[in-house]
């Protein structure tokens, strides 16, 4: 399969990480799954093409991670999509300068459309 791009997914729930990984790998994306917010915050070197970031993560709040990555020179260009079960995900996403949001539970097609929007 043709390598389409690398996506970083951050969620403290391993079930969610697993299912998103399966969905994206089925479509030919390379997936980096992280359950630790601190790890996401400190990414360096080989940077992903897109980050799917859970809002409410244990250890470190997804909102803080987003604001931090958007403020860092090396990472500010990476599109970030906030993922949350919160109905206010839309507002939160705009508050923390994320590019987009997707609500849990999501439809597979909606998730793929969202990813394709940022990785062409």
């Amino acid at each position, binding site marked *: 399969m043709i390598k389409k791009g690398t996506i970083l997914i951050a969620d403290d*729930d391993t*079930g*969610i990480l*697993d*299912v*998103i990984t*399966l*969905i994206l790998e*089925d479509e030919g994306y390379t997936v980096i799954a992280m359950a630790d917010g601190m790890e996401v915050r400190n990414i360096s070197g080989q940077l992903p093409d897109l980050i799917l970031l859970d*809002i*409410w993560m244990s250890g470190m709040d997804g909102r803080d991670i987003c604001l931090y990555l958007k403020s860092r020179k090396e990472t500010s260009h990476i599109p970030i999509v906030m993922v*949350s*079960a*919160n*109905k*206010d995900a*839309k*507002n939160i996403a705009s508050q923390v300068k994320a590019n987009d949001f997707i609500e*849990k*539970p*999501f*439809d*597979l097609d909606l998730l793929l459309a969202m990813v394709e929007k940022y990785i062409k």
Partner: protein
Amino acid sequence: MKNITTDLQQSKNDNLVDAIKHAQDIIDIVREPFIVLDATLHVVTANPAFYALFKVTRKNTEGKLVYTLGNRQWDIPKLRILLEDILPKKKKSKNFKVAHNFPVIGNKVMLVHARQIDSVQLILLAIEDVTKENDLERSNAKNAVLFKALIEKSTDAIALVDSKGKVVYASPSTQSVMGFMVDEFRKLSNPFDLVPPDDRKLVTRIFEKLLKEPGGNIQVTYRIRHKNGKLIWIDSIMTNLIQDPNVNAIVINYRDVTERKDHERQKDEFIGIASHELKTPVTSIKGYAQILQKRFGKEGNLPAVELLRRMDAQLNKLNSLIGDLLDSTKIERGKLQFHEGFFDFNELVSVIAQEMQQTTTKHTIVTKFAMTQKVYGDRDRVGQVITNFISNAIKYSPLGKDIIIKTITDKKNVTLAVQDFGQGIPKEKQVKVFERFFRVSGKAQDTYAGLGLGLYIASEIVKRHGGRIWVESREGKGTVFYFTLPVKKSLILKKQTNTLVEEERI
């Protein structure tokens, strides 16, 4: 000369006899018991009222020593004081109270008016039976003590305030509830100053509303600053008794419900966290089902795809139940938030009607649209109301048939009507359907599963948009649910009062 004297004597005697006779007539018609004694305290005469009250006969009374009357029942120490002590000195006495337990007629309280007339050597006793009045007075006094104790020992506090809000009475529990001594509290120029500004508007509005309703009462829960500086929750019932001349105030009966409020908040927080936690596995399961659907689709295994589609539909149902649970706690805590903007009302209804048609094969959803109209509000939340109406219509007309969806527009409002031809809702239950946890229940076959939250949430969403929600239904004929939304931006998205200042977790 002697004759003349005798004549005079005779005529004098005649006058006396006449006078006594007259006196007897007067005594007889007086309704109060009346008795005449001679100087040796023997009964000269008594009136019928006396005989009736004390159940004695004229024969056993006249000529007897007063103390020996009725088998010495009249040997009353207080009467002796009156007759032997007071009268000889003062000649008269008024309202001399004598209480005595008569063996035959029981307890009597009497007011005795007495007069000693030395010229004729007679003592007149008018007896007023005040037993009833006395009992009433005693029970009133007892009641007063009882009520005072109830008010003063009650853990609920009571305050009477005038129409300006100035405290005219405060019960001792004021101190245990709010920390203020009664006097301190009474000196406050306006006790509503203790209410924090966020809640004060609500309380003032309710107080003013109550002032216009003599006899009315309103229950309201708000926060108040305890003397120790902490905010506590107060649940109060205010009753307007300003026009009652005996009260002349607004009566505020209140209690500290901080603990209950804390528990409620903990419970709502728990439901908030629980529903978030429940959504996480639903998200995974839904994801797995969709991955399988896709993989089976590629292999051409269509029956498997169909089963997984049904599984996905059930997961959506589960998800919306969890969402309802979360929404209802948000409403209770004043945390339901809106993201407003303009949207096309007909377009939204049309999209949802098509989606809902996918969920049923028994029903045909028919749409009748009025001219299109842009509405300002939260598109997703209004969509939630529309979805709720249509899914109810499907749920409560299990035998199928049409579901008719109409939009009506005028300059000020848009209205949606969703009609089903199901079993209908009994008249007495129609107002209740918008209450939290209400479910139409009845015989087993008429009972439907659900949390009883959908219409409660719908009603809250519509009201917060400044709209109106209602139902028309006839049993056996079907039901029409309606809501209207104002088109104008300025009217809508009212802020909830009763808010709690705290960070939302999710």
